[in-house]
């Protein structure tokens, strides 16, 4: 008789997806989100607990608009990401934050996913 493996439950949790291209994509539970930081003008790094069992985080580089000079565009993207992680009523609990392949993003100031590592 086959024995079903125990799988960690993320019941009721929001999952977020970020897609760079056909070969670099990320999907993970928001409880694995470690935080994000500004990495330079118009550049942010999002980090999630790694999913391959190693200690190092999964790092996702994204580009944001940077024209006003006060960093408000990056702040707006942060707010949108925080909102996305709460789960949208329409999209449910699986939220696509950014898809560079399809050109769709949760905020117009979020321009691209540059790396998933």
């Amino acid at each position, binding site marked *: 008789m086959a024995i079903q493996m125990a799988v960690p439950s*993320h*019941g*009721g*949790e929001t999952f977020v997806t970020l897609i760079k291209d056909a070969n670099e994509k990320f999907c993970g539970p*928001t*409880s694995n*989100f*470690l*935080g*994000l*930081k*500004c*990495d*330079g*003008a118009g550049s942010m*790094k999002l*980090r*999630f*607990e*790694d999913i391959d069992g190693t*200690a*190092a*985080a*999964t790092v996702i580089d994204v580009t944001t608009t*940077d024209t006003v*000079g*006060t*960093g*408000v565009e*990056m*702040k*707006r993207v*942060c*707010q949108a*990401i*925080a*909102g996305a*992680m*709460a789960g949208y009523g329409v999209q449910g609990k699986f939220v696509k934050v950014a898809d560079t392949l399809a050109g769709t993003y949760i905020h117009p100031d979020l321009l691209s996913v540059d790396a998933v590592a």
Partner: protein
Amino acid sequence: MREENYLYFANAGGNDTDKDMAMFPASTFRGAVTMSSTTTEFFFAPQDGTGTTANGVLLTHSDIASGSSETATMVIGDNNQHKLVMEEFAQLASGNRKNTTNFTVIRDLNTVPANEGAISATGISDVSAVAITID
């Protein structure tokens, strides 16, 4: 599952250089330590995933002996800037607040637009400088 609260910090650099800004889940907060009479550092679980060396956000405020610029009545009195900033942080970071978004500005020292809700929020006015340490 409990809804997370995300805490936003930014110095006055306009989000133009590394670590001008950071956002942490409130659940990763490890604690706060007084570093001098004018600074308090708030520590979070490291974003690099190692779980070892904490990330820190050093907040500069007026000297412990001076009064508060906040108008709200503080239970702890107005002559202890460390406790004042810690209490204000705790109030903002608390996940028990109703009718608020889950994006919380602890301190943003940049010029912000008016009338845009959380985007217009500048956070704790007692804090005059923000220094973020993320390995």
